[in-house]
């Protein structure tokens, strides 16, 4: 399962980092607390959050996450999008809230296993 698959299955908008759409996804984590994500997310996870500032990319890069999915139609701030393009870690956006989106992602990722 790659990032492109969840983009298609869930109709997500690709805000930035389209060069990373072939990154492998192995799981996910949902949280808006950065230290929680730092401590508990893992490599190749998709991260569901409403945070849109540049620090989300610092975390995604350090943890080698597969992608970030912003909820409720949020868009990344310009410097976050820029780093996402540079590092090839996509920032995606969904119109849904974290609860619905996480549920769907969980199902799709587990089906692929």
């Amino acid at each position, binding site marked *: 399962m790659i990032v492109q698959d969840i983009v298609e299955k869930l109709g997500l908008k690709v805000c930035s980092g389209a060069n990373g759409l072939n990154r492998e996804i192995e799981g996910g984590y949902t949280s808006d607390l*950065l230290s929680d994500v730092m*401590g508990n997310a893992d490599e190749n996870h998709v991260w569901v959050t409403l945070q849109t*500032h540049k620090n989300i990319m610092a975390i995604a890069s*350090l943890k080698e996450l597969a992608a970030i999915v912003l909820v409720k139609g949020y868009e990344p701030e310009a410097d976050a999008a820029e780093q996402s393009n540079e590092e090839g870690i996509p920032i995606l956006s969904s119109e849904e809230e974290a609860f619905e989106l996480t549920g769907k992602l969980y199902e799709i990722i587990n089906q692929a296993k």
Partner: protein
Amino acid sequence: MEFKFEIEGGNFSKAGSASSEVKKILKQLNVNPKIIKRTVVSLYEAEVNVVAHAFEGNMNVDIDTDKIVVKIEDRGPGIPDIDQAMQEGYSTATPQVREMGFGAGMGLPNIKRNSDKMNITSKVDVGTELEIINYFG
């Protein structure tokens, strides 16, 4: 090998850049990926604590054949009660900082879990010194 990185208090847009440099170096040295991951979590949390809570600081990295020793020193308010600060959920972060998703009070506990040795010393109104050691073996 020794490296030194400056950390600017209050500059969130640069937070994580020193940790990212150290990660690159450890990758080049072919350090075990599991140990790199642990070290990166510890260093990031220590770096962000300087950005969020102190005025300025630096990260001194010493990489040996068998271990990495990192000292993060800052000039800042210091920590009056280290045991309290180490408790998960304890935070003095400002509302603005919390809005960004910092201030869960999980940084120091993350460092504890992701380092082999951790030493903090702090002096109120002077600053804080944190030492993190991870062994490669």
